[in-house]
C-alpha cells in the first residue's frame, strides 16, 4: 500500500516518556492546553533507561512512522544515571538505523522536564511536521504484522 504525497497522510507516532520529567511535562502541556497533533501517542515508562531499543524497532515493524523518546535533562534523572544509559543506547540504535537506511529524522531523543509543557508541545509539533514531511515508513514496516 503506497500513499502518494497528495493524500492526507497522518503519521503514527509513538512517544516514550519517563514518568518523572517528560510524562509530567506532557501533563503540563495538557493542563496548559498547549496543542499538538493527535498522531502522537504516549507510553509511560519509569525512566528513559527502561526503553529497550527493541521497543523502537517493534514500533517501526508494526507500522509506526516515527518514534521519539523523552527523558529528564542530563544530570536531572530521578534515578541519577538512567538517562545517560538511554542516551548512549539511542546513539547506537540511531546509527544502526542510519546504516540500514532509515531516515535520520524518524527517531528523536529530547529532554523535557516536568516544568517544560511548552517545550513538550513544541517538540511534538516539530516532530510530527518532520515525520509528515518524511512520509510513510516503508523501510521497516513488516506488512505481515498488519494481518
Amino acid at each position, binding site marked *: 500500500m503506497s500513499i502518494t504525497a497528495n493524500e492526507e497522510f497522518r503519521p*503514527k507516532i*509513538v512517544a516514550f516518556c519517563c*514518568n*518523572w*520529567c517528560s*510524562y*509530567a511535562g*506532557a*501533563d503540563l*502541556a*495538557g*493542563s496548559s*492546553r*498547549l*496543542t*499538538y497533533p*493527535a498522531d502522537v*501517542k*504516549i*507510553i*509511560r*515508562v*519509569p*525512566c528513559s*533507561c*527502561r*526503553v*529497550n*531499543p*527493541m*521497543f523502537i524497532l*517493534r*514500533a517501526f515493524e*508494526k*507500522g*509506526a512512522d516515527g518514534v521519539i523518546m523523552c527523558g*529528564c535533562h542530563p*544530570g*536531572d*534523572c*530521578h*534515578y*541519577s*544515571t*538512567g538517562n545517560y*544509559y538511554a542516551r548512549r*543506547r539511542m546513539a547506537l540504535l540511531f546509527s544502526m538505523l542510519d546504516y540500514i537506511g532509515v531516515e535520520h529524522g524518524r527517531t528523536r531523543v529530547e529532554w523535557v*522536564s*516536568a*516544568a*517544560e509543557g511548552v517545550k513538550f*508541545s513544541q517538540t511534538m509539533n516539530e516532530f510530527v511536521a518532520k515525520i509528515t514531511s518524511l512520509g510513510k515508513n516503508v523501510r521497516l514496516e513488516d506488512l505481515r504484522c498488519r494481518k
Partner: protein
Amino acid sequence: MQRIGVFVCHCGSNIAATVDVKKVVEMARLEPGVVHAEDYQYMCSEVGQAKIAAAIHEKHLTGVVVCSCSPRMHEATFRKAAEKAGLNPYMVEIANIREHCSWIHKNIEEATEKAVILARAAIAKVNLNAPLKAGESRVTKRALVIGGGIAGIQTALDIADAGYEVDIVEKTPSIGGRMSQLDKTFPTLDCSACILTPKMVEASAHEKINIYTYSEVEKVTGFVGDFTVDIRKKARSVDMTKCTGCGVCQEKCPSKKAPSEFNRGLNNRSAIYTPFAQAIPNVPVIDREHCIKFKTGKCGLCEKVCQAGAIDYTQKDEIITEKYGAIVVATGFDTIKLDKYDEYAYSQSKDVITSLELERIMNAAGPTKGHLERLSDGKPPKNMVFIQCVGSRCSDNRGKSYCSKICCMYTAKHAMLIRDKYPDVNVTVFYIDVRTPGKNFDEFYRRAVEDYGVNYIKGQVGKVAPQPNGQLLVQGVDLIDNKQILMEADMVVLATAIEPDPSVRKIATMLTASIDTNNFLTEAHAKLRPVESPTAGVFLSGVCQGPKDIPETVAQAGAAAVKAIGLLAKDKLMTNPCTAKSDELLCNGCSQCANVCPYGAISYETKLINDHGIREERRVAVVNNALCQGCGACTVTCPSGAMDLQGFSNRQILAEVDAICR
C-alpha cells in the same frame, strides 16, 4: 485470560466535550479480555469508585482500566478503590485521555480516535499485568533541613517541636539567611533582626535540633525513609567547644581587606570573622584565602590573643555521615548578577546599588551605621530613583521571565522609610506595574504614595548615565503622560530580580529532585502538593520552590514540616513493588546488570538451577527488592533477557506499542 472492566470518565466536560465517551466504551468492549465497560460523569467521585467496586464484585473482574486524567493525578485513587473491592491494586491501569488527549485536541473525531487507541494500549497492558505486593521499609526518625534561613529555621523548629530530631546544614558560618540582612520587613515595618534572632536562638537551644554551620551536603544516597547523607563540615580553624565568642581575635586581626559577604561587599571584614554580631553560633571562622597565617605562615596573632586557646590552624574538613527519614530543602535565594544590565551603570557608579545593598545601608549595623549616604562621597542624597523589575518579567534572555514578587513591596517600604526619616529627600519610583496582593499590602503601598508623597512613574528607565559632577542622569519614560523623562539623581536603587541560590542545582542533582528552567525546585503538584518534591521524602521550604515573601515562606516552612512529620510518624513505609526480577533460568551471571544499577540492588548468588532437567550450579543475579527503585536500567542492559521489570515488563510495553500501531 483476564476479565477486564473499562471505566471511561467524562470529567464533567473536561473529557466529554472533546472525546465521544460512549464511542470509547463501545470500542473498548471489542477488545480482548474486556467483559465490562461503562462511562460515568466523575469516575474519581465516591459514586464512580463505587461503580468500579460493584463491577469488580459482579463481573469478577481481574483487571481494571480507567480512562481518565493522568495517572500522576488519580492512579493511587483508583488503585486504592480496587484494593478495597478485593482486587490487587497493581491490576489497575490508567489511560490518560484528559491531559494527553481531550485537553490538547480540538477535533472530536480525532480526539475520540486517539482516546480509543490509548484505552486499547492500557487494556493490552492489563491483559499482561500480574498481581504485585508492596514490601515494607523502615523509617529513620530524623530529618535533615538544608539551609538555615528563616525557611529552614521554621521548618526545623516545627519538626523538632513534634518530637523528632532535626539537623540543619547551613553553608555560611551562621544561620539566619537573607532575612538577617534585612533592616525592616513589610507591611508592618518590624525590625527584621528583632523577629528573626529569637527564632535563631530558639533553634540553637532546642534539644532536638543540631546545627551544622559552615557545612555542606556532599552526598546523598538511599530513598524515602532511609536516606544516608554525607555532610562536609568545613574547617573553621576555631575550636567550637573552646571559643567563648569574645571577639578579640576579630579586633586584632591585621588582615581587614576581605569584602564582607554579609554587607554585600560594601565594606570589608577581617580574615577571622563572624558574619554579624548576632551570629549563631557566635564562633568565628578563619577565611583561609585572606588569612596572613595561611598565606605566608607568619602572623598567628589571633592564636596569641585568644585566651580560650580556641584557634586551631591545623583543623581539617570533616565528613559526617548521618541517616535521615526526610529531607527538607530550604536553600533560599540570591539576587541576580547585573553584568548584563550595563545601562543602569551598576558597575560604573558606587551610587547605583541593589535593594539588598540599600537594606544594609539603612541598617544600624551596616557599612554606614544606618545613615543614608552616597557610597562614593559619603554625602546625603537629595534625589533618589528606584527602578523596578531589573531582570524580572524580562522577555529576553538577559533576565528572568518571572515576577520576583517581593520587589514592589520592599520598594514601597524603602521609599516610606526614607521619606519618614529624611523628609527632604525626593523619592521617585519607575515601575511597569505595582503588584501588591496580600493582606494589608495594597494599603501599605497606598500609604507610600498618599501619606509619604513618593512619586510613582509608570514607565521604564532606559539609561542611567554617571555625570562628571557625580550626579546620575536617569533617562526614562512616563507612559501615562506619554513623555520622555530626564532627571538627575544622587542615588539609584535597582529592584534586582531574585533567583534560587546557585547551590540548589547541585543539591537537586544529589537528591534527584526535579528542577525547572529557572532552577526553582518543582513541586509534586503545582496546586495540591506544593511543598513536596516529586521525589518521595524530599520537601520544599521557602524561595527554593518559587519567589515568596517572609509570611509566605514561614507558612510554607510549616507546611513542609507537617509533611515531613507525617512521614517520620510512620514506622514503616510501603515500597514500590514495581521492581526488577531476574529469571534464573535465563541468567548467565554476566554482571552487567549490577554494573548499571545505581542502588547496588543486584548481587550474585550461586544456586542449584534445574534447567529443563539439567541440574547444575550457576551464578545468577538476585535483586534486593528493598533497594531496587524500579528504573529499569538493568532490564535493557541484560543481554540474555533474564532481567525484567515488574509492572513495566517487556511484554507489557510491547503490547502497548502493538496496540498503538495497530
